[in-house]
Every structure is written in C-alpha cells, then in structure tokens.
C-alpha cells in the first residue's frame, strides 16, 4: 500500500493568532473553507464538526423534488472521479422545512444554498422562496453537466450566464454567488457576464465533462453516459481559471477543483481565491474539510504568513 502523504494527519499545530477570517460579499466567514455543493449533506455532521467551517454549501435545491439520474452515477478515474448524480434533491419546501433549521442550529456558520432550475423562471422562483428564509447566501449553479435542461446549458454561453444571473438577481437581495462551468473556451467572459448581471461573488470551477468506458463489459460506465470529472487531476485547470478570473473581475472568488490538502488550498488563494471549497476530497476522507483547514493553517505558519488577506496578495509575479 502506498502512503498518501498529502492527506496524512498534520501534526504541526497552528500558532495562536492566525487571522483566518474572510468576508465574502458582505458575509463574514471565520475561515475560508467551505464545502463544495453536492458533497455535503446533513450526514456530513457525522464526519466532523461542521461548525468549524467558514461556511457550508448545500447541494442543488430546485422548486420541486428531482429524481436525478439512474445508477451507476459514479465512476472512478485516475486522480479523480466522474459523477452523474443529476441534481437529485428534495425540493425547496422540504429543504426549508427539514434541513435549513438543522444547519441554522450551528451558530456562526453561514449557510449557502445552491440553487438549480430547468428554466430561468425556476431559478428565480427558488431564489425568491429562499429569500424569505434566513439563509445567508445563494449559489447559482448554472454549470451542472449532468442534466439535460438547466445547468450547463445556461452556463456555457455569455447570454445564458447573463440572463440567468439577472433573473435571479431580480428575485433576491441575498448575496448571490454564481458558479461557473470550466467547459468553456473563455471562462473570463462568463465571469464578466455574471458580474455585469449583478453577481456578488463567483464560484469556480464546477466539473469537467468526461466519460469512462468499461472495456471488458464494453459499456459506458455511467447510466447518463457522460459525467462531471472532479478531484485532484483537474486542480491545475481550476487554479488557472481562478488566476484568469481574478485578473479580469473584481468579485470575491470561491475557488474549488481538486483541493486535497492545505497546500492546494493555499495555492488557490495565491491564485486569487478569497475562499476555498472542498468537494471530492471530502468523499474520499470524511473529515477532509477540517483537515484541510488545519493544514492550511500549518502551511501559512511555514510560509510565515499571518492572515488570509496576506496570503491572498503573497504571489510574487
């Protein structure tokens, strides 16, 4: 058995006095680590103390329950995984009734509701309904590659990004994060469209579109054929996109894509992210988000850096 050096328990304890706080679109997070949408459920509370996070991000929430795709929904790849969950969710009313109060019970933990729709109106409807609650931020997922309608269809054209963002912007005064797809020629154009339409922050990246074939069964592994590629293999693409968008748009960025360690999180922040979301890592190691937080602190100590603000401007160019 190899030894997963990156993920090994970090024994350096953070020095007292590190300033880990960030402010994303007016919302204070006690540290920059959140969960990546679709990899956090209420069950995550059995994996680690979620109140240690900077914020939690839910899976996509639609107007009504969605059944998602048939199985297999998951395929393993070299340095990553494919998923085609297809935004299965319990719908906004059930979420507001059953899940939001449970998350709200964690004091000082901002809740980000990720929202999805099949049409611009549906997106706006979810946003409007959630605006009646005390959820802290909304994350607009216009980048899911696993559904036929909605999702990526909106996120890969400048007009789609603009129109969806604008519609949701009209429906809510909550801080609005727009989550971008990496499956585009120029991510910067998408980021600008979101900014122009009134986004308060950006999340990037969602998954890359991929496919796996089981050679001996001669079949595509996923029932949905294609799926979203996530995990450490895509990290360099995510870093590049965060870097590009940071230099083109002034909005806060939540960086994600293959963050497996505190060093990966620091790399995202050096590239220009204000906060970092952990997805696949948390599926592979249940407490990855809080480990990564600890490792980030250890990494900052090793770098001699005392605050996230300082880290953000530490890249030498």
């Amino acid at each position, binding site marked *: 058995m190899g030894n997963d050096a990156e993920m090994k328990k970090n024994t350096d304890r953070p020095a007292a006095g590190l300033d880990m706080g960030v402010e994303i679109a007016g919302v204070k997070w006690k540290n920059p680590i959140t969960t990546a949408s679709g990899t956090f459920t209420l*069950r995550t509370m059995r994996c680690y103390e979620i109140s240690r996070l900077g914020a939690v991000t839910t*899976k996509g929430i639609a107007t009504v329950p969605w059944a998602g795709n*048939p*199985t297999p929904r998951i395929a393993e790849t070299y340095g990553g995984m494919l998923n085609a969950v297809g935004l*299965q969710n319990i719908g906004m009313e059930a979420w507001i009734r059953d899940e939001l109060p449970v998350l709200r019970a964690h004091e000082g933990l901002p809740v980000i509701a990720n929202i999805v729709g099949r049409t611009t109106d549906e997106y706006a409807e979810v946003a409007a309904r959630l605006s009646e609650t005390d959820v802290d931020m909304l994350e607009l997922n216009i980048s899911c590659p696993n559904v036929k309608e909605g999702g990526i269809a909106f996120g890969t054209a400048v007009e789609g990004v603009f129109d969806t963002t604008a519609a949701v912007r009209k429906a809510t005064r909550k801080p609005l994060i727009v989550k971008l797809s990496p499956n585009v020629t120029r991510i910067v154009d998408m980021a600008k469209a979101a900014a122009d339409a009134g986004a308060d922050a950006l999340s990037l990246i969602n998954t890359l579109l991929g496919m796996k074939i089981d050679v001996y069964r001669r079949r595509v592994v996923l029932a949905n054929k294609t799926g979203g590629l996530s*995990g450490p293999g895509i990290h360099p693409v995510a870093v590049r996109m965060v870097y590009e968008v940071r230099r083109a748009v002034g909005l806060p960025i939540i960086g994600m894509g293959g963050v497996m360690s505190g060093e990966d999180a620091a790399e995202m922040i050096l590239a220009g992210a204000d906060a970092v979301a952990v997805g696949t890592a*948390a599926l592979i190691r*249940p407490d990855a988000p809080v480990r990564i937080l600890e490792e980030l602190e250890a990494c900052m100590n090793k770098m001699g850096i005392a605050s996230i603000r300082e880290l953000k401007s530490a890249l030498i160019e």
Partner: protein
Amino acid sequence: MADAPYRADVRRFSTRVLSNTQLTSNIYDLRIEYAEGAFLPGQFVNLYLNRADRLLPRPISVADGGEGWIRLIYAVVGKGTEIFSRLNPGDALDVSTLIGNGFKPSPHGTVYAVGGGVGVPPVFAAAKKEAARGKRVVAVVGFRAEPILLDDFAGAIGAENVYCAIEDASVIPALEARYPEIRFALGNVVTILSQIIPAEADEKAFMAACGPTPMLKALQEYVKAFDPENDGRSRFELQLSLEERMGCGFGCCAGCVTQIRDPQTGTVRRVGVCSLGPVFAGETVVFYG
C-alpha cells in the same frame, strides 16, 4: 456540546491486516484489526487503496467479527480487489467505521439465510447472529462452482440446515464427498427454496438475502407467490442487501441510490444504499430497468 470534544461517527483510519487467505480461485478471506468488532449483520466497511489513481472506496460487507477484529470476504473482480488480494499480515490498510443499516432482527422463529456468490458473507453474519438468538436458521446459498463458508455455516446453524445450490454439475460429487452432511442441488437458490419450502410448516418466516440482482429479483417474485391474498403480506418477511457504485460510501454524495417504494404512499424515491441501506425491506425495492 460546545466544549465536549467531537467524536465523528464516520471516520477513515489505518488498521492492520491479520490474515488474508485465499478461499477459492478468486475469493479471499481478510481479517483486519478493528476495535469495533460488534457489528450488525449487513453492515459494511469501506476499504481504501491509498493510491492516487484509485481514490474511491471499495465497500465490503462484514462477514464476522469479534474482540478487536472483523472478517471480510471478497472476490477479486477488478484492479482494487486484485491489489487487496496481495495484502499480507501486518500490512497497513485504510478502512472506514462501520456503515449502514443491517438486517433487522427476525421477529419470527425461522430464518432463511439466502445468499449467492459474494453475497453470502453478510448472510452468513445474519445466520450466525440469528442462531445465537435461538432462532432456527436454514441457509440456502448458491455458487457457480466453488462454494465458500460451508463449514462456517455448519458450525453456526448445524450442517443439516445448510443447502447449497451449484450451477456446475460436474463439481457436485466432489462437494458431496467433502461435505457429507450438507445438501447440494444443481441450480440456483430458488431451485432449492422450491424444493424445501413446501416441506416446511406454514408459519411465517424471515428471509435475509444478498447476492446478484437477478437472484434478488427472483426472490422478490418467489416470496410474492406466498402472498395469496395479494395484500402485500407474504408468508416471508424478505430483506435484501443491495449493491451500488459508491462515491463516498457514507451518505454525502447521492451516488449510490436505489429505488424504494413507500409502502404507505406508493411513491418511489431514490435513496442512498450507503445511508439508508444496504438492507431494505424486500417488497419496497424497485429494481432499475
């Protein structure tokens, strides 16, 4: 709980291999150090390869356990299990805490433990536990050619209660010679059930099953036939342990859903095999396709 130290229910940790012995041409018997030896039959653990090219968990049912150890019986079907087959005593292995809801304890006096292939290990665990609870357990297990765990079943529930279906007729004489007290039959588990069930008394019974999907579907059909009024109350209370490909194996990714019909409302929902299963009430399972 403000200041109380938080202890996660779901954890991944490193443990050690105690033994890893080959049972058949492609099935291995792995014992690992494991503090929480007390498990519910049907529960599983995730094994991790700790390799950057194989990040996802391999869920394996717990077949047996005791003070400080558990036993996992797995077939080599792909690269991951092939790598497991090369583990030696003392090697480190990453593993999760116990996951999932096991078989519910039988409310009836008789338990049928029905398993096929590498679906047999969790069913063995259920059989052993029910026998220890004083139930009469009948095991009906099926294999293509190479059975496993027959001595273990015989030890736990009595050899006279063990029936074994074999698909390859040519191996049966040798098996009969080797296990004289166990009854073998050519065919599958339903073949055997059809033979032995009529002979049984008409009382209600519990049936714990795990195996390939066609077998589980056949059992669903089989127990339905004992539901003459078609009111959903079969003579058998069937529980099925299911498999799905897993992203996390502990309820965080919605990767592993199966379709379950709500007995009250009739609505079919997709629910996680790792979080609400792997064991489900047999009549509620709506197989894909």
